[in-house]
């Protein structure tokens, strides 16, 4: 089981955030292949490529230029090929309205960006574990809803 690589993508316009995230994901025990995107449009262009291997988990920043996270989320949920993908929102916002709106638009996990590296590693690991359980166990995907 441990030989399978988990395909993860992150769309975030902040270079530092992308770098820290990549470092955090390197350090945890789950083996992953991470692809990074600078904004939502870049991610969406990638996801609709004809022979793309779809990721098992998408991390989406909310505030991005060109196409923001909420728009990506809506497009993903209304695209029949992408609608079942697991989406985690990864944002600095802790506004209750933002959080509720992402859930209503189909986000599975809402992650508030942690303010230190140790916490980030912990949070990323928790999300990956949850995602793994939902992919390998008989858990109900309709109620796959977590706030971390």
């Amino acid at each position: 089981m441990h030989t399978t690589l988990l395909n993860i993508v992150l769309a975030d316009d902040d270079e530092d955030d992308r770098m820290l995230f990549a470092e955090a994901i390197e350090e945890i025990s789950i083996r992953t292949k991470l692809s990074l995107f600078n904004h939502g449009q870049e991610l969406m262009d990638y996801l609709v490529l004809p022979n793309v291997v779809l990721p098992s988990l998408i991390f989406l920043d909310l505030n991005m230029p060109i196409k923001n996270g909420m728009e990506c989320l809506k497009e993903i949920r209304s695209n029949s090929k992408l609608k079942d993908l697991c989406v985690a929102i990864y944002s600095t916002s802790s506004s209750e309205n933002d959080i509720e709106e992402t859930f209503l638009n189909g986000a599975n996990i809402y992650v508030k960006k942690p303010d230190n590296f140790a916490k980030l590693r912990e949070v990323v690991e928790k999300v990956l574990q949850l995602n793994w359980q939902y992919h390998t166990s008989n858990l109900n995907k309709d109620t796959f809803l977590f706030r971390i």
Partner: protein
Amino acid sequence: MKIFLKYDFDALCKTFIKEHLDALNISYAINSINEVVIKDDFTGEKHSILSDALKKYGIEILTDQKSTLIERIKQAIDDMLDDDDNKNLKLSSYLSDTLNYSYTYLSTVFSENTYTSIENYTILRKVDLAKALMCNTNLTLTEIAYQLNYSSVAHLSGQFKKTTGLTPSAFQNIMKKKKNIIYNTRLK
């Protein structure tokens, strides 16, 4: 018009497996949704026909001993949560008695292969069942707590919040709104 469906997952799986095995003329006994005893010779050809037929429904015939054991552990946890006579038992003794392995062995195999412990998986599964009961039944939180063998509503709420980051009522609220959105967009 919109119709609502409720599934009996166990019956669904058993009927499904039964139909596929019958089609191949195999003599078998279904022990549980994760375990089927094949009484005939199950040669390469039949094995691959069945394996291909099931694959497109996301069902996999496990070949690896450890993944088989992990599925049996998960099934045993579900059985225990489901059975009123068993749910007061201690998880560790229930699992070692049912599966005939020491709990230390079971918990090591589980942790090494699933990125989580048996205890944490059980909590996640219980919360998952609580979510389903909140969405699909009219049971109160007190009744749900009782059914899932929590000592009190506070215990259920606490574990729910700790696991999902949401209070049960926030969760119910979101699910209710989601249902309305889906309903309204279908009507348009």
